[in-house]
């Protein structure tokens, strides 16, 4: 789950990491009020879950409350990369002497957290040459010991005894604490700025591990999925919108990807990615099928190789949907093998549905049907 910048900064502040003075608002009048409280030049930042916000014109500056109100009026209602701007963050405009980069994420290959830092942060961090990017893996059994933080500061080229050096050591330690205690997949500050002798987090990007949300109830919930993606998520399934006309359901992320690849290989276009794996029961599978029919595809392709998923559950779901709807609005092609295969096929037979043995045959048939070939 991605958090809005203002939420990330609230989290930073909670842990004692310095952030600019300011608050989130949703109306121009509030923006003026916050600017008056701050009492000086302010920055008004669109809160959207997308990068490149500055380049898209989603950040404005104002010298007084009236200016802040006008800027807020312009920003609210804008869309940035398809996302509407409904929330703004109004903050003091910092005096920026230098911009750094700092983040912690999980490196799957190293099976450890990795800290990434650069003395050259800001908008173009991705274009910085490798030698300006410092990476340090953190032994998960040690955690963020202070020696790690000191060594990062040394490698960034800042004197350890300087006010900036000392503050960066603290920032690194706090950032790691947030990363662990809030089950984050990513905590990023870009830029981390020098403002006179202070070090301040001028931005925040925090992504919380979806799998850990059950124990992170204290965090605000941010919805970033489409309505269909949300409906699937509520069933415990993984779903992604694509733009073709063959609705696809398979059991397992890998085979679902393989199914999409196969459909494309035969010249078809998948409408979605839907993984109904992991022992999804009959009822949830039926609801998932309803989601697929709701996409108004030309054909629905179900590709099941049952392991923990049982063929009789899937076939039962197909039958339930068939009976509830009094038939299928568009053709349904199913490939069904694996655990409880025979029981599953017997159920399908009751409604006159024949299952394919092989994925390529089923995929080919689905593609033909999507092109109007019988």
């Amino acid at each position, binding site marked *: 789950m991605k958090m809005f910048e203002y939420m990330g900064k609230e989290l930073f502040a909670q842990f004692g990491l310095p952030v600019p003075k300011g608050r989130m608002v949703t109306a121009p009048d509030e923006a003026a009020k916050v600017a008056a409280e701050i009492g000086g030049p302010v920055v008004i930042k669109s809160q959207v879950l997308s990068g490149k916000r500055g380049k898209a014109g989603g950040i404005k500056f104002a010298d007084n409350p009236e200016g802040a109100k006008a800027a807020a009026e312009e920003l609210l209602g804008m869309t940035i990369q398809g996302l509407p701007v409904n929330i703004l963050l109004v903050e003091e405009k910092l005096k920026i002497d230098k911009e750094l980069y700092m983040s912690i994420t999980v490196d799957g290959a190293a099976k450890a957290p990795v800290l990434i830092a650069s003395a050259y942060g800001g908008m173009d961090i991705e274009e910085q040459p490798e030698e300006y990017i410092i990476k340090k893996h953190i032994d998960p059994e040690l955690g963020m010991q202070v020696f790690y933080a000191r060594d990062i500061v040394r490698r960034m080229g800042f004197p350890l005894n300087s006010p900036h050096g000392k503050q960066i050591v603290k920032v690194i330690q706090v950032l790691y604490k947030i990363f662990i205690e809030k089950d984050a997949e990513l905590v990023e500050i870009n830029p981390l700025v020098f403002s006179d002798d202070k070090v301040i987090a001028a931005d925040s990007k925090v992504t919380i591990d979806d799998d850990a949300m059950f124990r992170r109830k204290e965090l605000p919930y941010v919805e970033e999925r489409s309505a269909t993606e949300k409906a699937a998520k509520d069933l415990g399934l993984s779903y992604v919108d694509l733009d073709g006309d063959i609705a696809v359901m398979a059991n397992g*992320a*890998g085979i679902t*990807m*393989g199914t999409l690849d196969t459909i494309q*290989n035969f010249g078809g276009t*998948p409408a979605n990615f839907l993984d109904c794996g992991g022992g999804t029961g009959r009822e949830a599978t039926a609801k998932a099928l309803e989601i697929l029919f709701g996409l108004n595809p030309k054909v629905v392709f179900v590709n099941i190789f049952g392991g923990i998923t049982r063929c009789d559950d899937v076939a039962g779901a197909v039958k339930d949907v068939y009976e509830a709807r009094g038939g299928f609005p568009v053709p349904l092609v199913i490939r069904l093998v694996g655990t409880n295969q025979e029981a599953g096929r017997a159920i399908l037979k009751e409604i006159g549905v024949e299952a394919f043995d092989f994925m390529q045959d089923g995929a080919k048939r689905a593609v033909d049907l999507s092109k109007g070939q019988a």
Partner: protein
Amino acid sequence: MAIIIDENTNVLVQGITGNQGVFHTKQMLAYGTKIVAGATPGKGGNVVEGVPVYNSVREACENHRIDASVLFIPAPFTKDAAFEAIEAGIGVVVVVTEGVPVHDETEIAAYAKRKGAISLGPNTFGIVSSGKCKMGIPPNQYFVEGNVGVVARSGTLTYEITGNLTANGLGQSTVVGMGGDRVVGLTFIDVLKMFEKDPQTEAVVLIGEIGGNAEETASEYIKEMTKPVVAFIAGKSAPPGKRMGHAGAIIERGKGTYKGKVEALTEAGAKVAELPFDVPALVKEALGKK
């Protein structure tokens, strides 16, 4: 031979009394797995499918020789259960559970490494030494003994490809599921090294997917291998920035792409199959069979 587990492996099932635990204990027994004990806190003294249940892993270990443990434990409790098995000195821990928090996965991997245990998963279908021992959830009938080693991130895709191998007369030595999550125990290289040493294995099938750099890293080792490697990479049609189910399966900032992986593998001498069902023909070719 086979790798990691074989016909002499004594298996413990943690979470044996749950729905999945009961169902898959039955399936594993039917495959021939030597399940000697189960463990569920508070359910000690019960018997599931003829297998005695204990309250803790330690208690099971006091009563049986245990070589490997397979976990059917809900995600919030998985870390504790995996620690319990590793702490008890069990050498192979297979974590089937999906949805384990990534920081828990990191801790499990680190602890297993420190104690010298092999950990598979989380989010793995398990491991099958075909014809000898199955730990996990794959359907039994597709795993037949032979000389092809299979290593994969993804479950169902592995059944698909293994089923195709079997249908084409190509049995398997061992089929290893590393797990689909971002942080898992074994890596491709770990498993490839074991297959390279295993006398039963004559060729290896590597089933990867987009995202991360595990396949690229594996390519470095494939260059040194004497045994042929055939690969399939899922996610050719996946758009960048969209996470395809597995925590690892996402193309981020142009890294972990299908093209990059295929190039790395091909350059290392592996044959890459376009589609899952093209794998058997490439394996036959690699083994010099018709």
